[in-house]
């Protein structure tokens, strides 16, 4: 795909911004996709993860990665026989692959959780739900972050 003018300006802009910040100790620490896979395997084990049923709401373009609103909802009747046990959220490029684990049950009535998260880079966020029949369902969203969180130096 040829580079569009917008992409070029974005790149040029971010290079300029990075150049003006006095970089003291910016280490290349970030969760690699391998860490993401390992973190997901930690939760799901060897079980297959199906795509669907989970809805991950995050703004697709984020100016400030320090606080990004996120809502995860799962299509489930939430009855005693068919409910969501837990929701797990992961990221691809923060220093750590985990974002949060949320444990719910049939008494919550609606399988939906909201919080605010940090994103260190433009990356993928994965939400996985564990249902009462121990099947796993996931949703993935790509988010563009212009100001990164987590690793910037303090003053």
């Amino acid at each position, binding site marked *: 795909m040829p580079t569009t003018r917008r992409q070029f300006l974005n790149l040029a802009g971010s290079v300029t911004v990075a150049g003006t910040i006095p970089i*003291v100790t910016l280490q290349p620490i970030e969760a690699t996709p391998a860490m993401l896979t390992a973190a997901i395997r930690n939760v799901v084990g060897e079980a297959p993860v199906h795509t669907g049923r989970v809805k991950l709401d995050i703004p697709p373009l984020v100016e400030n990665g320090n606080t990004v609103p996120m809502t995860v909802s799962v299509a489930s009747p939430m009855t005693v026989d068919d409910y969501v046990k837990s929701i797990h959220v992961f990221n691809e490029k923060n220093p*750590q692959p985990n974002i949060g*684990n949320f444990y719910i049950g049939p*008494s919550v009535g609606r399988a939906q959780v909201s919080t605010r998260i940090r994103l260190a880079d433009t990356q993928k966020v994965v939400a996985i739900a564990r249902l009462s029949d121990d099947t796993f369902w996931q949703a993935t969203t790509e988010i563009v972050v212009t100001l990164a969180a987590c690793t910037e130096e303090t003053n």
Partner: protein
Amino acid sequence: MAALINVPAKARRGDVIEIRTLTSHIMETGFRHTADGALVPRDIITSFKCRYNGTEIFRADLFPAIAANPYLSFFTVAKESGKFEFEWIGDNGYSSSASASITIE
């Protein structure tokens, strides 16, 4: 520490109600450095729990990727009048709690 809890004061039996909580905490990631290169130690809330009349209805494990002043919103079925108790536990022995009452009509 200061916590903001938003629970409806009244609800009808069987309603699905939203509970929103916000607590003040720095949520220092442990990945940042000061200008002279020293690592700022991690200081985060690691666990949140909500009990409804003594029964746990919601629990969360939090990681450094949760933004400062953790906000959490979730739902529950309004079953009976009573109390919601909230508890935050974190690094360096951090612990704080809050509660809210609900009346079922």
